[in-house]
């Protein structure tokens, strides 16, 4: 038991010497919640305009958001320069989202992604967002006090409803490094001074190459895999105006099959099956005995989706963005040698992709 005494002595000696250098006491920190990257004209100071916001607490214990920006060469360079502009110690462990402007992302964001992944203080669930127009404008347009959190929550809500793809820094980095798929990021923009989710941003490796509308990005998600719940507003042109259907589906599955002839790849089939309910149909007639026909509606939706899918694949092929991960399926159907041979070719553009849908109406709400 004399050990215990010695132990106490040794420990107290050691502890006198350690620890305090690393203290990061919460109220002394400027906790960045978001970082925006815009392109800046090359100068001696840097090539990117980085804007960030962090809360500061006023004398009356009120929280207020401070926004500062700087021109820098890299993310860490920017952090250092931002820190010089405030009395708080700038830290990045609470960053929730990174917003890139279209111009900036078009040049590739590999450097930033790696910097974030290398930084041990930043978590893996940081959202990556592309903004139409200037990224810093998004910050100004956000109404609440906690900017980063607002973007985070908005994106989470939208991706939970399968309107836009979910994307955080880990997903981005993973798909960027995968030779079978390309990342897809959410796209936000400003309409009438309000921040709006616009759709999806397509990438080829780390370069932004094009965008999809919300409707298109929903379709993309349908074709990529399981969708737990989402909805579609389907407009079908008629003799006079449109017939509008509102279809909500709660289970959809996508099956991707690679058809081969010998070692040659013939075609990739994507089959999407979805089950859901019809909650609106402007084609309903006034007289009672002509209820909405299940088969007719299913066919209508099917046809609409098939058309849209063809259009979407054209867009993807044009942008050379394999956001569906077709290459991955092809890879997994080949031997390693075969794959190595065709890996570098423009596989995605060459392979014909056929999308089929099977739509099942489970119910039609409270009306027949």
């Amino acid at each position, binding site marked *: 038991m004399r050990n215990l005494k010695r132990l106490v002595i040794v420990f107290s000696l050691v502890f006198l010497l350690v620890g305090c*250098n690393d203290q990061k006491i919460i109220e002394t920190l400027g906790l960045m919640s978001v970082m925006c990257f815009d392109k800046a004209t090359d100068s001696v100071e840097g090539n990117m305009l980085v804007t960030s916001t962090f809360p500061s607490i006023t004398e009356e214990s009120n929280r207020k958001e401070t926004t500062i920006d700087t021109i820098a060469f890299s993310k860490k360079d920017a952090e250092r320069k931002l820190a010089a502009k405030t009395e708080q110690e700038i830290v990045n462990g609470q960053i929730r989202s990174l917003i890139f402007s279209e111009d900036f992302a078009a040049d590739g964001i590999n450097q930033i992604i790696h910097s974030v992944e290398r930084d041990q203080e930043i978590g893996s669930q940081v959202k990556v967002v592309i903004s139409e127009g200037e990224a810093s404008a998004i910050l100004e347009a956000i109404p609440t006090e906690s900017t980063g959190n607002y973007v985070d929550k908005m994106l989470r809500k939208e991706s939970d409803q399968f309107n836009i793809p979910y994307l955080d820094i880990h997903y981005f980095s993973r798909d960027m490094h995968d030779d079978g798929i390309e990342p897809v990021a959410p796209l936000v923009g400003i309409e009438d001074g309000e921040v709006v989710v616009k759709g999806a941003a397509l990438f080829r490796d780390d370069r932004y190459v094009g965008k999809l509308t919300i409707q298109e990005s929903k379709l993309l998600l349908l074709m990529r895999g399981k969708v737990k719940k989402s909805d579609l507003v389907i407009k079908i042109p008629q003799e006079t105006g449109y017939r509008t259907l509102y279809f909500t589906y709660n289970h959809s599955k996508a099956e991707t099959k690679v058809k081969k002839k010998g070692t040659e790849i013939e075609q990739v089939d994507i089959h999407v099956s979805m089950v859901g309910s019809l909650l609106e149909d402007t084609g309903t007639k006034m007289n009672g005995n002509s209820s909405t026909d299940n088969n007719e509606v299913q066919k209508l939706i099917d046809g609409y989706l098939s058309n849209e899918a063809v259009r979407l694949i054209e867009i993807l092929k044009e942008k050379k963005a394999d956001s569906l991960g077709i290459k991955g399926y092809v890879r997994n159907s080949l031997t390693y040698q075969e794959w190595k041979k065709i890996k570098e070719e423009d596989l995605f553009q060459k392979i014909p992709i056929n999308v089929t849908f099977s739509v099942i109406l489970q119910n039609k709400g409270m009306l027949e």
Partner: protein
Amino acid sequence: MSEKIAPFHLAILIYMIQSGVTLYKLPRMLAVNFGTNGWIMVLIVSFIVIINILLISLVIRFRIGENVFEIMEGLISVKVMLPFYMLLAVTWSLLAILVSKDFILITQVLSLQNTNSSMLIVILMVLTFYLGMKDVYTISKATNIFFILTIWMTLLMIYHIPHTSFLRLTPFIFKEGKNAVEGIIQVYTGFLGFELVLFLFPYVDQSKPKWFHSVYYGHLITTIVYASTCFMSYLYFSLDQLKITSYPVLNLIAYVEIELIERIESFVFNLFLMKILVTLVLYIWASCLLLERAIPKLSRKQSLVILIVTGMLLSLKVNVMADVGNWLLIVGFVAAGLAVGLPIILLIVIGIRTYRGDHRA
């Protein structure tokens, strides 16, 4: 107090000695050295380890004498064995110190960057000393609780299931790998620790005839934990991403976010302190046995201090991550050689002695 370690606890002890900070790097090591589907290698190496354990079980079954020392000294006198004992003791304590340095350096990647790393190592050594002073039965009792406090981490993997995809696994096996031999050695060193059963068995309750099975069970737990973690990493990361991620398992844990606490990795990683401590203490404990056999005058306290200080002095200059990695590779290789070599030598000794007509204990 002469309570014996129950077989069940032996299994836990073996698992806790085996698994350590290697787990954090294992998926990357596999990805770099074996490429696609490297996780299968864990199972293959685990099988090789089982053969190694089989050798040890033969030694224990056919032993002449109470412990390893009695087996050896029946043929070769203590004086001849003395330098060998000392060398073995130093190797193992050096291995232990290197493992602890590795742990501290990874800790400092996460937090406490500005603290002097040697201070942290001293703290760890004090803990080692504290636990090392207890008898092996108490060590086993403490290990038990450490096991319960750490094993649940494996369950965190459930969180990652929605983020995985079999697509990323690819049908290719061991393609795009760099250096398979080095890889196998690295994975093998990740399994090291089972060889200590050679020194542990006199303290184990051998009333049940199948007590040795628990060594296999312990190794099985390690294999399951290693293989499932690596498998999960291959599903969660893309291959090229895995290759550039220093500590994939740390990223895995970091991805878990719950309402109450975010970024639990800074907490969970520190739990590994307990696993490391068990590895550390048992290697040093075995070294102590060796040293005390060589110099019987030493008390446990003295031999502990001597070994810890020797290990620290030998690795005084090794303070950078890359250096520690290289040293670990070399010392790990030596230790792996010992794990294979020791039982073979012992079996030869037993063979000669049986031939001479010595009686089995």
